């Protein structure tokens, strides 16, 4: 059968072009790879190579023709053994192949929310990737049963809890290993990995050079094969060097592989402001990572949550960003003893019940939230404090359940205000519980400035209990 040569598209956006010049003439033999013509677009002159072999039976579009639409037949090739004149007479009659139909657009979910559609005929997500809808009457997650019944309660620091979580999971699964700067012989820059080298040896507790980009990539590569790395960043500020591997490689590969390539990896380390370390060592990245589909983002406040969530993160088949806080490392909390204690990722915890206003926070922001609740109680305002614990996927239902009760909300974080986690919380409340609000949602955040070094300025740049109290009173109109 004679073969039509079609006007080719030379870029994703080209619709037409000029057939500048034929380099072969009718009757010429054509081999695959031969340049047969030149096409001019608004950007460049490109060569057209033959794909099929045979004799150029007929040229349908002459040299110099402008505005030739893509996919217009421009010539006919008679295949080996075919009659050239027959081929030429049947020219240009081949059917145009079906190009991509934009069928997806018609039934695409509503773009406004970026969430999974909620209608009955909507496609159902097989893995809970998108936010599940919040029911009309939201129900708070009950975290009170997370501590195993009868378990001995130990008072321990966040640092010890994190170490125990890693040690337990490494005992449980030989595929789990820890890598990072100073994690082994130095016993951890913040002593979080203390004792792990002694128990698990240098093959599973690996000191890396100072080379975040490289070792993050090595960790992701190892995870793609099914190993379960825990990659420690000395601080998440340094993970900026590695963020390409975290986002482009770890978070997106499952989707880009059509579900074939999971990436079970935990990136952990201190995040946010410590004390007097200035702008390059004080950044809170919760909002950054929470913006990325494919990642889970966890930011615990208590030692028990840190332990239970880190164990869950290590067992999770997805990349998890585990944001710790240097100031919290030394704080002690009650933690249940035993290997079975897990805290589910994606569930908030009601840290203090109340009726008058909801205060939502996470990580070290909880110190301001709880401090404010105590101060407010003295003034007769009972605040309900919710610890999100996981930023992504966010347990907004527990927040909504509280707001439906209190009708007021203050969201608190140490991060910057614009596009922050508290901005997201406010928006989600407005989407799901607008009619329940008696006041606009308020937020207390870090100030919109790089973190200053001077003690007085640093204090001003961070949120404080007084600001949370003031915001809570404002939404209570008191």
């Amino acid at each position: 059968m004679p073969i039509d040569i079609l006007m080719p598209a030379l870029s994703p956006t080209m619709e037409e072009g000029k057939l500048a010049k034929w380099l072969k003439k009718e009757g010429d033999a054509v081999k695959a790879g031969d340049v047969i013509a030149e096409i001019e677009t608004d950007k460049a002159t490109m060569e057209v190579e033959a794909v099929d072999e045979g004799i150029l039976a007929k040229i349908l579009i002459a040299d110099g023709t402008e505005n030739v639409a893509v996919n217009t037949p421009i010539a006919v090739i008679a295949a080996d053994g075919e009659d050239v004149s027959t081929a030429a007479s049947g020219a240009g009659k081949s059917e145009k192949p079906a190009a991509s139909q934009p069928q997806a657009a018609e039934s695409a979910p509503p773009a406004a929310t970026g969430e999974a559609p909620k209608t009955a005929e909507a496609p159902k997500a097989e893995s809970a990737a998108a936010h599940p809808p919040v029911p009309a009457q939201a129900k708070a997650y009950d975290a009170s049963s997370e501590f195993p019944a009868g378990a001995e309660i130990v008072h321990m620091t966040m640092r010890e809890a994190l170490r125990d979580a890693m040690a337990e999971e490494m005992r449980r699964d030989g595929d789990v290993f820890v890598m990072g700067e100073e994690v082994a012989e130095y016993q951890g820059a913040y002593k979080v990995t203390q004792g792990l080298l002694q128990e698990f040896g240098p093959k599973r507790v690996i000191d890396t050079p100072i080379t975040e980009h490289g070792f993050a990539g090595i960790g992701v590569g190892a995870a793609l094969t099914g190993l379960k790395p825990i990659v420690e960043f000395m601080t998440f500020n340094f993970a900026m060097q590695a963020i390409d591997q975290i986002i482009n490689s770890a978070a997106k590969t499952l989707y880009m592989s059509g579900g074939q390539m999971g990436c079970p990896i935990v990136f952990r380390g201190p995040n946010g402001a410590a004390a007097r370390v200035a702008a390059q060592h004080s950044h809170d990245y919760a909002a950054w990572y929470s913006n990325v589909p494919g990642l889970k983002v966890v930011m615990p406040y208590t030692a028990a949550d840190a332990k239970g969530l880190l164990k869950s993160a290590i067992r999770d088949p997805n990349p998890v960003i585990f944001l710790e806080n240097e100031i919290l490392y030394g704080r002690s909390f009650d933690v249940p003893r035993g290997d079975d204690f897990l805290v589910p990722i994606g569930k908030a915890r009601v840290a203090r019940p109340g009726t008058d206003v909801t205060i939502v926070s996470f990580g070290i922001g909880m110190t301001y939230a709880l401090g404010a609740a105590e101060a407010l109680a003295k003034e007769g305002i009972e605040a309900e404090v919710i610890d999100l614990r996981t930023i992504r996927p966010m347990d907004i239902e527990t927040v909504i359940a509280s707001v439906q009760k209190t009708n007021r909300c203050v969201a608190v974080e140490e991060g910057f205000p614009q596009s922050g986690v508290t901005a997201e919380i406010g928006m989600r409340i407005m989407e799901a519980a607008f009619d329940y609000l008696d006041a606009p949602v308020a937020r207390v955040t870090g100030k919109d400035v790089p973190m200053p070094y001077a003690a007085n300025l640093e204090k001003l740049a961070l949120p404080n209990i007084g600001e949370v109290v003031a915001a809570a009173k404002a939404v209570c109109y008191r």
Partner: protein
Amino acid sequence: MAIAARKTKAPAQPKTAAKGAAKSNSAKSGADKPLSNMPTFSKEEELHAYHEMLLIRRFEEKAGQMYGMGLIGGFCHLYIGQEAVVVGMQMASKEGDKVITGYRDHGHMLACGMESRGVMAELTGRRGGLSKGKGGSMHMFSREKHFYGGHGIVGAQVSLGTGLGFANWYRGDNTVSLTYFGDGAANQGQVYESFNMAQLWKLPVVFVIENNRYAMGTAVNRASAQTDFSKRGLSFGIPGEQVDGMDVRAVRDAAERAIEHARSGKGPYILEMQTYRYRGHSMSDPAKYRSKDEVQRMREEHDPIEQVRGRLTRDFKIGEDELKAIDAKVREIVNDAAEFATHDPEPDVSELWTDITLEKARA
């Protein structure tokens, strides 16, 4: 006897590159074969290489054509001209060895034995594509064939590939990681971070630098202070070789040495494959940064497929009919893939929301 890096007969590189191209570096390769003449292939090996390279060539030509017809969108980077590199490497690797590369990846996937239908249908964004149409030209993977992508961020695959080598080392499974990247990616910082750790920990990684002379439109000598890429691991003590990447025999020969070095626990090895891409960087690149003569000369004098074809005719007396039969078989595979990729439906709209996170760990 330890032989330092060596140079097989390679096509002439641009002036500045050739000047710096030393025959050896001080790193020890651990290879114990003496400098030899060009290794020879058996008839079966020549036929195998011919078939594999021709499949890639015809597949890529077809992909270019389908791009022109609007069936393939976005970016599409063709491997035409570089076929001998991946085919020669695969001839030296064994089952279980892992492969990873950048965005010019169609050839690698075919050489790894991934289905041509699945590759082409991914190019057209259809449900039968290897990534269900969600990855496209630059992002395909196969656990079964140990192919780890398909990566669009230049240089990122080098650290990832080192991680594959790390996993091999961690598991002690005696496999190696074949990590491909171009002369352009070779200037990325994470490449050297990876070299450092690979050698520090003696990871079984073969770094295959496909030097096709142009990083997009920038000639090697305009972007690289050291254009002898086999020397790029020198300061880490990683041995390297320059290889005529247009001659599949030279590629396999060097690959055997490099893979043996990595597999035996001696650490990484660098192979600079001196090769050439006939087409532009991507479909919309008219390649004005080089002369037509240069391209023409490479095609006429160094074409990897014509070299094999010549030897098959001359040395093994394979007749034109037999070669034509191979051509026809390859064309049939490619046409079948194109046909499938043209008519396979687009992904179901529900696929938008799948594969974002995994619910449960795989068994």
